[in-house]
């Protein structure tokens, strides 16, 4: 038992210690990433604020992530409802096909998307990146929303129709509020996945780099490393905030629906 405890602690240290290095060197007054630390500075954050190309990349990334989150969640919502409420010929095959990008190596998705887009005459841009990200985010959205629909009593939608609502107003008045926690969670997860996705963005972004692609380009210049550390610090803090928010909404949704907690992502 003691051995296992030591193993678990070592494991966690190896997993998370490198992340602690980010803020450490982001505030370190020296261009070389090595101990001992030189002294406290905010210079790197100031330089971060001055780099134009970085701003463009950030705007690109956020635009891509927001659009991807909305599109993938819409698709996920429809697919999850169809999968949970209806049976149609070839259902298993179709749903399996939609979920496939979850297990497909991203490099393969990226290369084949690039080839396909060049073949039909589309040049790489923000929109091709969005298409790629929607493809890989939709399965996550479906997986999250499947849980929401599975938790929801089928009779609720029937009851609303029985009480005079049309299928469309039933969706708005009953279905949507009840799966809303799932929708919020899906939006946040898809946003995060898209924001830090590298391979597809690298192949498909052309001359409009996303943040990870820009960062990768900057790694060639050792002098820029502390700036990247500063940026990394900001991203880590944002990611943690995002996940906590997602979990908060999920738990609140469960409480409001009076359901058992079946485990979330935190």
């Amino acid at each position, binding site marked *: 038992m003691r051995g296992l405890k030591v193993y678990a602690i070592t494991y966690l240290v190896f997993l998370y210690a490198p992340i602690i290095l980010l803020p450490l060197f982001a505030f370190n007054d020296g261009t070389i990433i090595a101990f001992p630390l030189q002294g406290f500075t905010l210079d790197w954050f100031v330089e971060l604020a001055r780099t134009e190309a970085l701003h463009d990349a950030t705007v690109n990334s956020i635009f891509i992530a927001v659009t991807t989150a909305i599109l993938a969640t819409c698709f996920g919502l429809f697919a999850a409802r169809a999968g949970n409420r209806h049976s149609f010929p070839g259902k298993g095959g179709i749903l399996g096909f939609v979920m496939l990008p979850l297990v497909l190596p991203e490099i393969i998705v990226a290369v084949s998307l690039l080839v396909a887009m060049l073949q039909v005459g589309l040049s790489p841009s923000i929109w091709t990146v969005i298409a790629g990200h929607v493809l890989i985010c939709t399965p996550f959205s479906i997986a999250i929303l499947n849980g929401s629909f599975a938790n929801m*009593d089928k*009779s609720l939608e*029937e*009851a609303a*129709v*029985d009480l005079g*609502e*049309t299928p469309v107003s039933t969706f708005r008045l*009953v279905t949507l509020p009840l799966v809303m926690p799932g929708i919020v969670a899906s939006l946040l997860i898809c946003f995060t996945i898209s924001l830090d996705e590298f391979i597809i963005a690298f192949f498909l972004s052309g001359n409009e780099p996303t943040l990870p692609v820009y960062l990768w380009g900057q790694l060639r210049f050792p002098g820029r490393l502390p700036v990247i550390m500063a940026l990394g610090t900001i991203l880590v803090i944002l990611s943690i905030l995002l996940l906590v928010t997602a979990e908060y909404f999920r738990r609140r949704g469960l409480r409001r*629906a009076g359901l058992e907690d079946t485990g979330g992502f935190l």
Partner: protein
Amino acid sequence: MRGPIITLEGVQKYYGEYHALRGIDAEIGQGEFFSLLGPSGCGKTTLLRAIAGFEDISGGRILLDGRDMDGVPPNRRPTNMVFQSYAIFPHLSVAENVGFGLRKSPMSGAEKKTAVGEALEMVGLGGYGGRAAHALSGGQRQRVALARALILKPKVLLLDEPLSALDKKMREQMQTELRRLQRQVGITFILVTHDQEEALIMSDRIAVMFEGGIAQLAPPQDLYRRPASRKVGEFIGMMNFLPARLIEAGNPSVEVEVPGLGRAILEPDQCPMGTGGEISIGLRPESMTLLFDGQNAERVAQGVVEERTYYGDMTYYDIRLDGAPNIVQVSMRNMPGRRVLDRGDRADLAWDARAMVLFC
């Protein structure tokens, strides 16, 4: 029964190859408490959902107040449903649940509020409007579901096993209350249940369903006293079945010989009697009486007590009749001073030919 509110004409339903409803014909009267009773898988819920509009039927017609319901979606039918799970909207308050169906009504806000209050009052939940729906108990959810359906004043209220999720005490209380509510509002209730006792207690008429068809449609007393087939007799209450031999087939009376009991003259309302064929008689446990010390009766049979089961108000005896192949069950009300028989005791029992039902 005032004129029919629902007419079912040869209603058929297929799920792929599976024949779920095999031609249902029935008329359900205005203001009637009508039950669909049967084991699970007999098609009773499918029929209810077809009336509500949640299932398309494969053949036949459903007329609601004289109007053919073919192609009419559930939200346009003058029916409302109480679901087995109650389907209370968990994200709304009790009052919002009850007022849900009024959203499109031309009533003013204040009128709606009054209507919701009255509906809650009617089901005994006055003052509960502000509560969160998910914080209610099972019985309270049931009442909210009732109020929510009745507030729209439907022509027919459909109830899908509404009491099956409640515990025994609560169920018995709700049975009486549902009956009272139905008389009060005068709306036709159609109840789906697998509990024969519940159907007997609550209904004006009961349709017993087996394998997608109606086996018998009758008021509770007729159903219990004169089951149309052995299967119905077995399903409703307890019934002893004894093989019988035809002695003389007259019209209207028939004489049969029942091994162990003796000869009886019956006036069957079924079985156009020919000769030959397997026949049997059915006799309820309470239609036979044990005789104690010196009591006498017109028709007496003898046997041995094989088993005795105590139920509090009743004692059931399993008795092997002399000269009969099977065991009959006899129930006796427990009264002060009444003797009980033990296993192995000889028993005299009196029976009444008027309570016999002939099956063929």
